[in-house]
């Protein structure tokens, strides 16, 4: 553990960490923006507005 910690700021470790996290980020973005998801997210975006149909007072005042 001491050896690991003493090399903690080593640039190789930093680079590996960066590659892992950046790859993960790119995958999330690709997945989120894939065309097949479009209709799903459009429906989810409507959730706060959906309540209006179910509620008595939402638009009242």
């Amino acid at each position, binding site marked *: *553990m*001491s*050896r690991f*910690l*003493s090399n*903690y*700021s080593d640039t190789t470790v930093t680079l590996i*960490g960066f590659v892992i*996290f950046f790859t993960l*980020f790119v995958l*999330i*973005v690709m*997945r*989120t*923006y894939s065309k*097949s*998801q479009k209709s*799903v*997210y*459009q429906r*989810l*975006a*409507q*959730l*706060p*507005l959906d*309540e209006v149909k*179910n*509620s*008595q*007072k*939402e638009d*009242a*005042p």
Partner: protein
Amino acid sequence: MQQEIRYDDRIVRQFLIAMVLWAGVAFLVGIWVALQLANWKFNFDLEWFTFGRLRPLHTNAAIFAFAGNAIFAGIYYSTQRLLKTRMASDFLSQFHFWGWQLIIVAAALTLPLGITQSKEYAELEWPIDIAITIVWVVFGVNLFWTIARRREKHLYVAIWFYIATVITVALLHVVNSIEIPVGLFKSYPIWAGIQDALVQWWYGHNAVAFFLTTPFLGLMYYFMPKAAQRPVYSYRLSIVHFWALVFIYIWSGPHHLLNSAMPDWAQTLGMIFSLMLWAPSWGGMINGLLTLRGAWDKLRTDPVIKFLVGSVTFYGMSTFEGPILSIKSVNALAHFNDWIIAHVHGGALGWNGFLSFGMLYYLLPRLWNTQLYSKKLAEYHFWFGLLGILIYYISMWSAGITQGLMWMAINDQGQLIYPDFVETVNRIIPLYWVRVIGGTLYMIGFLIMVYNMIKTIQNRGTLEDEKAMVPTFVSLEPSPQESTHRRLEGLGTAFSVLVFIAVFVGSVISIYPVLNIHRYVPVTVSVEPYSPLELLGRDIYIKEGCYVCHSQMVRHLDFDVIRFGNPSKVEESMYDRPFQWGSKRTGPDLARVGKKYPDLWHYRHMINPRDIVTDSLMPSYPWLAEKKAEYDQLPKRLRVMKSLGVPYSEETVEKATEIARKDAQAIAQSLRDQGVTDDNLAEKEIIPLIAYLQALGHKVKGNPNVSLSK
């Protein structure tokens, strides 16, 4: 099949009213402390009302009382409607409400009394820390229980932000508040020096992130579409915004410790991640503003939209400025002065304040079943508030940059152009008065809102919980056709675990190595622990909130070194519980003040600073020469310190009171020899405090050229 349910609107009304009450307190104390900085006489020479004690009251009231109650009001309102179910337990909701108000009252009583841990935004002592933990757990249980009972399969993005808030605030509070009690109102943290500094700013920075940002973003994602009557501009962007923000924010704490004795790698880590925050923060801001596409005309007529747009705009400004301030060279200019104060208030008054007010104007007519008394007054509120923030922001920005440049100014001979610290303070006092004007305008706007609110409530209709038709049963099981993230956001527990992992990974990587610094850096110097008398003095220093105006961290910057002395090293504060590196210099740094002046200088300076430094802003502390120090508590305090690793001998612990009194007699005698007339001087608080100040910078033995810092 549908069934009728009623949402719990009573709890929302309660939190809204509490929000307004505590906002009044926070703003009023804010103006008061602003006056104290413009003219020291506003300290009134009373110990309960000095800047050192009131400033923590102001910050705690603004963050946890005003913003806290605003968050809870918004969360309780939107969660029920987004999940199409009533809160799981009315009892837990009420427990949360009354428990939180009790905590605020406890804070309002203890902070002016000097009962504090001196850790910024975590000043409250251990019994209140335990109460916060219990109330927060109750809130979390109620929220997750409601999520489990929901009648809407998918969790809207606002709910994700609430989940991240609950989980991360719990983690931050527990880790930063691990302390050993030494009495009902006194404790020492288990972390010391650099470890305490890093844990504290991991907490402090992320209190801003997960108490003042993520829940408010959740509210933005709910109330912006509601007010504009349009779905959020890009739901996809909100997903990327959420995960990027939650993952990146947690790493950025070390940017509060740039150019300090913190290891370089940690400083660089904090700086890089702060710069990376630009992207998700602006992604969120753009998403919020573009939600108004096609509805910008409402900006002219709808006060709710006005406040929400103002709020998101200030969010954009603050999150643009924050990363800039995290660049080491910019931070060298901005840190310890009023530029940071400007930055903080742009976020607090603009982002948090305006969003809370926009939400209030949206909820008032709906919760009290009536119409808003006056849109015109709401408009006035907006313009008074906006003008107040701008005046505040510009004045403090100017004050900070002016003072920062004066601190940095060095002539051709390598000498400071403004060697007297007080000169750099007095130069900006006119701007402190301008700040008072800004704060007062904001307060006037707030009072207009209170009047509007009272008149609206006076015209209320029947108060009843809102009815809604919801599905009788909704299967929460994921279906095989669903995408990974869509399935995930339908699984509250799995989603929460992922959020926890995201914040946990960043936390461990950024703070774990520093918590173990002794395991991999060879120690070549020895540090003498504080004597019993010095420790007692240190506790008085903490009680009076001296850290609010005085840092104990000479940065690795030429102009700091020329002004104050050798740069601070990690080992110097290795026994400091809590650390006292500070975050603001309204007065000079004290890391090297030990033995710089005689005891009599300190005595006279404490009784009346103007006797020594004519233009000083510092409050007078006459009670220090009247109140008796708690010598009898010393054995208990030293024993706790010893249990935490401070190398006190058993004999020192047992005879701590005796040793301290003996040391105090020597200081008291020397003061009497120089004309101070008080036969019982050794028993007074001022003596241990002088002993502590004289010890600063004189505790390191051995080879001072080899430092743990590098």
